[in-house]
Each structure stands twice: as C-alpha cells, then as structure tokens.
C-alpha cells in the first residue's frame, strides 16, 4: 500500500441503475398524521444523478434509512414529476419496525435513499367514465390518496367518487383534515372506526358496513381497495356480492418486497412476484392467492 488512493470509477446512470442503487432524497417536510404515522415530503438533493423516474399512483419505492435498512412504501401523493422524473415525492409511513421507526423520525433536511418506481399502478385512467369506489382500511388509505387526487385533478373524466374508510380509532384516521376538503370537493366520504371514543359522533363498525348505504352502481363502478389482507378479501367479496365484477376490483398486495424488480423472489405469491406483478392486482387474479397459507 502506498497510501495513494485510487479514484473510484465514476458512477453513471447506466451503471448505477435506479432499480439497484438508491438515490439520495432530502426530507423537505414532515407531517405527523397520527401518533405513529407521518407523511414525508422528499425532494431531490443536489447530486450528480437524475432523480428516479416518475411514480404512478399505486407504485412503491424502496426507502432506505441509511445504516438501518430498506422498506417498501407506496407513494401517497402525486408529487412533482417534471421531465418524467420524481422531483418531489410523498410517502406516508407508520412506525412499526426498526427501519420505519428511523424513517418516521427523519427530520427535514435529513437524507434518505429512494429506489424505484416499482410495481404496478392503480391505472386510474382506466376508470374514466365510471364511478370510482375507494375502500381503505387503516394505513391503506395512504396508497389510495393518489387515486383521489388523480380523480379530483381531472374531475370531469369520472362519475361519482366514493371513498369508504375504516380506522382502528378516531385518532388513527389518516388525513382527517383532507377528508373534509375532499367532501367539499364532491367526494362522497364515509368513515367508520372499530373503536369509538367519547368524542366520536361518526359510525362504528367494519368498513364493509359502509358499502350498502353508499348505493353503488355496480355496472358502472371500478373499485380500488387497500388495507390489511383480510380486510381486502372481505371488502372485495362484499363488493362482488353487490355486483361489481371482480375484474374491476383492484387490491394492493403487500408481501416481503426486497429487490423491487423480481430478482430475489422474496415476495413470491404463487405465480406472482408481488414487487413486479403487483402490488396492484385485479381481484380476479388475487382472490385465490390471498387465501394461500404462507410458508
């Protein structure tokens, strides 16, 4: 060893690849949505590389808390996709493990890593001319927020926008202020909680109880469902029982996503690699797979 450092080979877009190497993003803002959930707004920092490509609603990123690990988190906003690049991203995440706790604690100005975009999207545009029915359970409202925002941004393309949301308690309800704004913008919002507190004057019960009163038009509806697996199954079955074709019911699957591009196989669910073939899947494909007992 001479002590002389050898210059590292220059990384380029082609050698790094946004799929394999995280881009640095800076936390521009941090909003506490509930006691354990925050929405981080990420912006591109000054760096030699382009931001990652633009995300579509429903797609996810692998977010890195440096020195701790990486987790898959769906986009929860439309962001800024100038030039086809994700120049601003929004992610809503809940502190449930070591990585998400670290990301939850990330303060404005700090850097986190972003890989993506990965997976399939909600394909909101395919619902043009139809009613949009959104059913969210718990943190599942976060990946569905871009569906609402997309539909509101191009309101005349869609029929009714119906949002049915379930939460554990009133305090766990995401985007409470935004729900009011969406109501004023014409979104038919109904909310229920599993456990009420003394100040709650809304509904109490399972989110499926909101379906019948919503008076849906099954022949003309496209449903977007996200939440815990069991909640999605019961919701999708309830929607199908009311006549919405399963091919027009989309669910967002969550499995053990690692690489994001179908290389590692950790997220395999039957014939699907959820990171690549999902997370958004039609219930016509997902129904049987969601009943498969995991190894």
């Amino acid at each position, binding site marked *: 060893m001479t002590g002389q450092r050898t210059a590292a080979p220059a990384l380029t877009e082609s050698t790094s690849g946004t799929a394999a190497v995280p881009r640095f993003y800076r936390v521009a803002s941090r909003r506490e949505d509930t006691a*354990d959930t925050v929405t981080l707004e990420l912006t591109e920092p000054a760096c030699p590389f382009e931001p990652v490509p633009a995300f579509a609603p429903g797609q996810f990123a692998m977010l890195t808390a440096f020195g701790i690990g990486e987790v898959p988190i769906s986009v929860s906003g439309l962001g800024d996709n100038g030039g086809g690049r994700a120049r601003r991203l929004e992610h809503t995440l*809940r*502190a*449930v*493990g070591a990585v998400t706790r670290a990301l939850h604690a990330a303060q404005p100005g700090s850097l986190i890593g972003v890989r993506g975009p990965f997976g399939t999207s909600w394909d909101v545009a395919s619902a043009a001319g139809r009613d949009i029915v959104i059913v969210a*359970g*718990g*943190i599942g409202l976060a990946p569905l927020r871009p569906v609402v925002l997309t539909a509101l941004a191009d309101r005349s393309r869609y029929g009714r926008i119906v949002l049915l949301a*379930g*939460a*554990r308690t009133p305090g*766990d309800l995401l985007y409470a202020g935004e729900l009011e704004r969406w109501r004023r913008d014409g979104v038919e919002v109904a909310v*229920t909680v*599993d456990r*009420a507190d*003394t100040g*709650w*004057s*809304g*509904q*109490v*019960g*399972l989110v*499926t*109880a909101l379906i*019948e*009163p919503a008076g849906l038009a099954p022949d003309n509806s496209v449903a977007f469902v996200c*939440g*815990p697996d*069991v*909640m999605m199954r*019961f919701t999708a079955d309830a929607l199908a029982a009311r006549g919405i074709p399963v091919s027009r019911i989309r669910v967002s699957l969550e499995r053990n996503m690692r690489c994001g591009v179908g290389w590692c196989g950790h997220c395999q669910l039957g014939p699907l690699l959820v990171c690549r073939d999902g997370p958004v899947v039609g219930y016509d494909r997902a129904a049987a797979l969601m009943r498969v007992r995991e190894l």
Partner: protein
Amino acid sequence: MTGTVAARLSAQPFFAVLTEAERGALAEDGTAVTFAAGERPFDEGGVADMFWLIEQGGVALDMRVPGRGDQIVETLGPGTVLGWSWLHPPYRWHFGAVARLATEAIAFDAASVRRRCDADPAFGYAMLRAFTPVITERLQATRLRLLDLYAAPSQVRRVSIGPVNV
C-alpha cells in the same frame, strides 16, 4: 316518511324475501315511530318486546362500562334492523340503543310477530331468512374487529397455539 306501513315495508330490501302477503301480515304488527337524537329505544337488560326497521337517521348500540360510560359497539343506519333479542328467550336486550340522529323507523310488536311465526311456519321461516343474513354479517364483522387488523404489530396481543414446553 309517509305511506302505509305495508307500503313502506315493500320499499325496504330487508324484507324482500317475504312475499307480499307476508309483508302485509307483518305490517299489521308495525307502527311508524320517530326517535329524537339522544332518545333511547331500549336499555341493556330490558324486555325485548319490540324490534325496529330503521328508515332514516341512525342508532348506536352501546353498553355501559363502569368508569368508561356508554361504549358504542356498533352503529346502524337506514335499511337495517334494530334488535333481534326478541327472537329467542329470555327476550332481554343484551345491549342498549341510542338514536344518534333524528330517526324514523317502523316498530314491530315482537310478541305478536312471534305468534305469527308459530302459527305459520312459512312466515316464520321467511322471517328467519330475512334476519339470518344480517345476523351473520354482523357476526363476521365482529370477528374481524376482534382480529384488530389495523393495529400495529406492537399493539397486537400474540397468542401461541403451538406446543408449550414447560
């Protein structure tokens, strides 16, 4: 709400499994009622001598928990039925109920409906076919809520069902 009880029953999908004649018979035991917001149709432990089909407004089922007041366990809206403790002995309410909004409903004389069920098994079977789906749905919903699906992993009480080594 206006119109005869029979006409109002015909407009409700809940009793769609009943024939027109059966709905007509049921209507004879029904009376239109209203509850002001905050009014209590019944309290836990009381005699379950009525049931209601909610047409407008909303009702919450609750239970008094010492130190925590009245805890709401479920809310019910238009088109659904309030009360099924009248179906089986001891005919006592297991929960209380409170109108959360100004509520319009059709109230049924439970004892009279039971007598009709006993006298006419076809009518009784139709009534059970009307009630069973809602009972099943609420049971399934309650089971799912017991799973506490929206809880964070740290909030979930894990129960081992595997072998226990002592």
